[in-house]
């Protein structure tokens, strides 16, 4: 049943590298990660690739397959033409470590910059009561498997390294939205800080992030746009602007 597949793999590190062509067996039903593993076991013992669960649940095997940001474990070889060469390259928005592995520490730094959840002190453990319909809004964003494909595809940072400092990226906009919509979170002004400190305003809603999300989270429609709209309401509401002169806003 096995046939030969032409695979083109980017190999190298931060100093130098390029595409290498290999021929590898492929069986019916295999995904791109299976084929990469076969290359690793039979031809390139030191080929670097990240992966963990191989079931689309951990978000480790993010890479670019024929130029598109994908999870290698969720991309079937059969979705390409039989004579098509499949090209696998590392995520473009992050610095290369080796082969298909990039340095994604940018994302973990940004995660540390988002103010944490604040629980109401008066609510003892076990006393919280929430409606299912109210938790579902945040639950959509908590499905995120942190594959960082949205971060990789977002052209605010993909094409503009200099924006990384002031732009948290779609993954962290849904984190802020999740906390903002959390029925119990006590911290105020999350939308305002999203705009002022995390670069929400730089997003121009092209929805590229939503398109690549393997969890089908509606990043733009359900997180970014509602926050942007509220920010506009807050910042440009004439009555509030007047009141704001008298007293600094307590909450948004």
């Amino acid at each position, binding site marked *: 049943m096995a046939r030969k597949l032409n695979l083109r793999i980017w190999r190298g590190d931060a100093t130098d590298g390029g595409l290498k062509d290999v021929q590898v067996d492929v069986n019916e039903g*295999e995904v791109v990660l299976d084929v990469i593993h076969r290359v690793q076991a039979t031809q390139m013992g030191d080929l670097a690739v990240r992966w*963990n669960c191989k079931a689309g649940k951990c978000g*480790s095997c993010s890479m670019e397959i024929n130029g598109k940001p994908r999870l290698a474990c*969720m991309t*079937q070889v059969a979705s390409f033409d039989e004579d098509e060469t499949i090209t696998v390259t590392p995520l473009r928005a992050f610095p290369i470590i080796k082969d298909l592995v990039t340095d994604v520490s940018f994302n973990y730094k940004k995660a540390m910059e988002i103010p944490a959840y604040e629980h109401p002190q008066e*609510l003892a453990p076990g006393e919280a*009561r929430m409606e*299912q319909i109210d938790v579902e809004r945040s639950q959509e964003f908590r*499905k995120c498997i942190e594959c960082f494909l949205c971060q990789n595809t977002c052209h605010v940072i993909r094409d503009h390294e200099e924006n990384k400092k002031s732009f948290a990226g779609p993954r962290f906009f849904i984190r802020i939205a999740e906390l903002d919509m959390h029925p119990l979170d006590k911290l105020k002004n999350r939308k305002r800080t999203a705009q002022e400190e995390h670069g929400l305003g730089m997003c121009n809603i092209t929805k590229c992030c939503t398109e690549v999300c393997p969890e089908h989270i509606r990043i733009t429609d359900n997180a970014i746009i509602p926050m942007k709209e509220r920010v506009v309401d807050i910042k440009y509401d004439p009555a509030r602007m007047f009141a704001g002169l008298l007293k600094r806003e307590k909450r948004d």
Partner: protein
Amino acid sequence: MTLQRHKYDVLVIGAGGAGLRAAVEAREAGLSVAIICKSLFGKAHTVMAEGGAAASMGNVNDNDNWMVHFRDTMRGGKFLNHYRMAELHAKEAPDRIWELETWGALFDRTKEGKISQRNFGGHEYPRLAHVGDRTGLELIRTMQQKIVQLQQKDGREFGDMESKIKVFAECTITEILKENGKIAGAYGYWRETGEEILFEAPAVVIATGGVGKTFKITSNSWEGTGDGHALALKAGANLVDMEFLQFHPTGMVWPPSVRGILVTESVRGEGGILTNSEGERFMFKYIPDVFKDKYADNEAEADRWYEDQDNNRRPPELLPRDEVARAINSEVKAGRGTEHGGVFLDVSKRIPAEVIKKRLPSMWHQFYELAGVDITKEAMEVGPTCHYVMGGVEVEPDSAAAVGVPGLFAAGEVAGGMHGSNRLGGNSLTDLLVFGRRAGAGAAEYVKKSGANPVSDSTIKAAADRIEAPFSREGGENSYSLHAELQEVTHNLVGIIRIRSEIEEAIAKIADIRARSKNVAVSGGRKFNPGFHLAFDLDNMLLVAESTAKSALLREESRGGHTRDDFPGMNNKWRQVNHIASFDGNQVNIKAQQLPMLPKELFDLFDVHELEKYMTPEEIAKGGSN
């Protein structure tokens, strides 16, 4: 190249549920903590847990309480559990779940707005707190974010967010270091660069999870290589109950993209039939006498059962898990398996496509998306898949301290005792929380008493030499092929069904692979080199496999996750015994150790007639240990 050195109070190896919970506890006790993570932060195998976290909160049925949960856990483990661990787990699980909510977790809700709880096999009442089918992910994220919260607090206080708790991602520990008989730290390498790293810490918490990658077919990810089991053994700790592994009878065996992934029992419940390579529906041959009155012995009746359950016996595909697994195993061994060592499970011939998609939506979707298998049109190839190891580091239940090694602690799947011979679904997620917290607290208390224990230069040199070794060999063995060979041996000879002659064969073959593994050579450099990483993982898996095979050889009965074809029944005498594995530097040795008896207050929670199934008349007459 100068060696990177770090000093911490507590070193946590493993960043799954248990490790993160331990880290939070140790930091909140005022100590500095390093978290070692073999992959990226937040990718641990805990994210795979779907069902939920078992805790007797009584939100859905208020008859539930810790005593009912305790009873269920002991029954599930066939009374081989360490009673004190099962007791602590049942008592503390609700508090651990509620605590997560104060850290921002969002569980599904009941109509009253409480945390919803669902039914699960072996649990008397609805007990599993859940978030759809991604409960494990919710646990990991919540604790990951709790750690960020602690870091932000430290940032405000000390000016550096990583001053007191730091995550070392993509870092592998190769050795736990001791000085003067006590824990002194650990040695390892960065996966990205291959550069070596030394941690000096008087307390080490092992929370490395399972051993699934020792077997050919497994639901575990690459990380499940038994690192913590092996590190603990080599540091002088014991492993308990290593013969007990949980296999699921129907994991996918082909195509490789879904190998190991579980096919839920409901596929059989909805009418899926099992056939061999000759097209025979073989389960009719495997109905044990005790089940003859409940299961149909012919196809016509089995088929009628789906329409009329009152007047027909059940199809034999719905026999208990171990019976189905035994039958599949027998067919494959008799040469009637599929090309890839499984049998066929087919739901397509019986049920119309649209009904399958409606009743088994996630199954249909998963196989279609991951493997291009359309279960409405074709049969699946299935066989037993390794899912969970009950055995692990022998610990003191209250502190999670490893027996025999001062300063060493273990929690989660890598620790033994809690689940006895078989784990109930849902108990692992609360096990992580309850014993992760206890390990963190135990380590903190130990450090406050014992103080620092510096690592000597000679200890460092020995650890460094060991890492260098595979690079200095030329033309030796390939670690990928040795790993594949080991997986064949464990899968075929000490897998789900065992027999003396095969276990003995396995022990000999494992010893042979281990001898050859001393000669593994690595090609390429040190930088993110999976071949190099596997060379160390392989060493760990070999020790785990040896512990399992040798424990399995001695236990002459069948109980929970240990089935002996030559000793099919459960034997109450064996219930009184745990197998303890230790390592003498050359090989694993096993000794039998008396299991502690239930104290009277726990003994009295059971009906005596139930205990008679598990205990000898003398034990029953004593009525508890006090």
